[in-house]
């Protein structure tokens, strides 16, 4: 956590709630995009991201300033995603929602059709835990240790799920988007 963030956290805890916006603004895209990649539905992604912000504000007092603020936000979002995922939709429902939103999904406009298709199609073939690990490690660039911290699991578990996820990703890309591998051959 850098000095600027530390100062902003202190200001918010001191009662200056206006300092919360500059504190979380650098992560607003990250949180919304990650939520969208997890649930594949823009409205639900907004709901997850909004709940993440609310919880971050409520529990800012318990934030350990030795930790990374970004990882703390990611951890909250993963918890929200899991609780909402358990409440609202199973895998089948998520796929159904994603299919319904294919034509008029604002995410399509915002993210770009090509990447959306490729990445989300690959994510669709992963289990929820594999998806979480893959997104945090390979897309967001968190280390194995950070990923384990965010997901509150062991590094061994992260390695196991990551290994499975990558093996599946290779098969999916090879089968559906062979052009993505062309450049390296």
């Amino acid at each position, binding site marked *: 956590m850098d000095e600027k963030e530390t100062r902003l956290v202190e200001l918010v805890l001191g009662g200056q709630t206006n300092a919360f916006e500059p504190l979380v603004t650098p992560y607003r895209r990250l949180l919304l*995009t990650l939520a969208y990649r997890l649930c594949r539905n823009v409205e639900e992604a907004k709901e997850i991201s*909004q709940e993440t912000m609310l919880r971050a504000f409520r*529990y800012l007092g318990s934030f350990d300033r030795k930790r990374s603020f970004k990882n703390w936000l990611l951890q909250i979002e993963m918890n929200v995603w899991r609780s909402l995922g358990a409440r609202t939709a199973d895998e089948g429902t998520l796929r159904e929602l994603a299919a319904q939103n294919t034509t008029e999904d604002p995410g399509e406009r915002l993210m770009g059709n090509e990447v959306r298709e490729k990445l989300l199609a690959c994510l669709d073939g992963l289990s929820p835990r594999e998806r979480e690990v893959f997104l945090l490690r390979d897309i967001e660039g968190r280390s194995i240790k950070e990923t384990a911290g965010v997901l509150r699991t062991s590094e061994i578990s992260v*390695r196991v799920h990551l290994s499975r996820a990558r093996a599946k*990703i290779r098969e999916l890309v090879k089968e559906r988007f062979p052009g993505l*591998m062309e450049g390296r*051959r």
Partner: protein
Amino acid sequence: MNCSRVRRWIPLYAGADLSARKARRLEKHLDGCTDCGRETEELRAALDGLRAGAGRETLDWPEAEWKGLMARVKSEKPRPRPVSPLSAIPRKAWAYGFAILLVLGVATLILRSLLSPPTASLLSEIVTATPAQPSRSLKTVEALPVSDPRDVPFRVRRSRLEPLDRALLAAGPVSEKTTQNLMSMTLVSQETGLKVHWTFNRNFEWKEKKP
């Protein structure tokens, strides 16, 4: 190393997450195995392609919605910092403390089992079963009936009974014509040496004596 074993490592190796020792062994294998080498390259290409694409294009909040969200957040109240003396102790300290207690507990159990004598705690011994004269104080007709079986032998009130004469118990054998009216029993604890002496008449009324 065979391909089936190496292939399990390729996904982690392609993302630079394999340990250095395993990575060296894998690289040695890849030098001579084109199939595994191709698989590694394919996976790297897939990961690089997805990372590059994902990094370029992200989802963002419409500005009005973001402002609305921030306004809603600010209307909340942050919960106060939890103040607990226990929370100041780091988790590692808890873990070490628990481990020390566990080790001490196990050591105590082991030492106790090594040092304590491996015998039964009580030795029941019938000291005498000899016939004796009827008690002067416990005539058959006057003896109190045994009341509730639960009271025998620990709750019988014997305040109205005269104490049995120890000399009577020590009396030698009597003639064969007499019937046995008294029986005594002594329990001795081997651990403490405590002796408890019980004497019963034929109505099963009893007297306890402790040294």
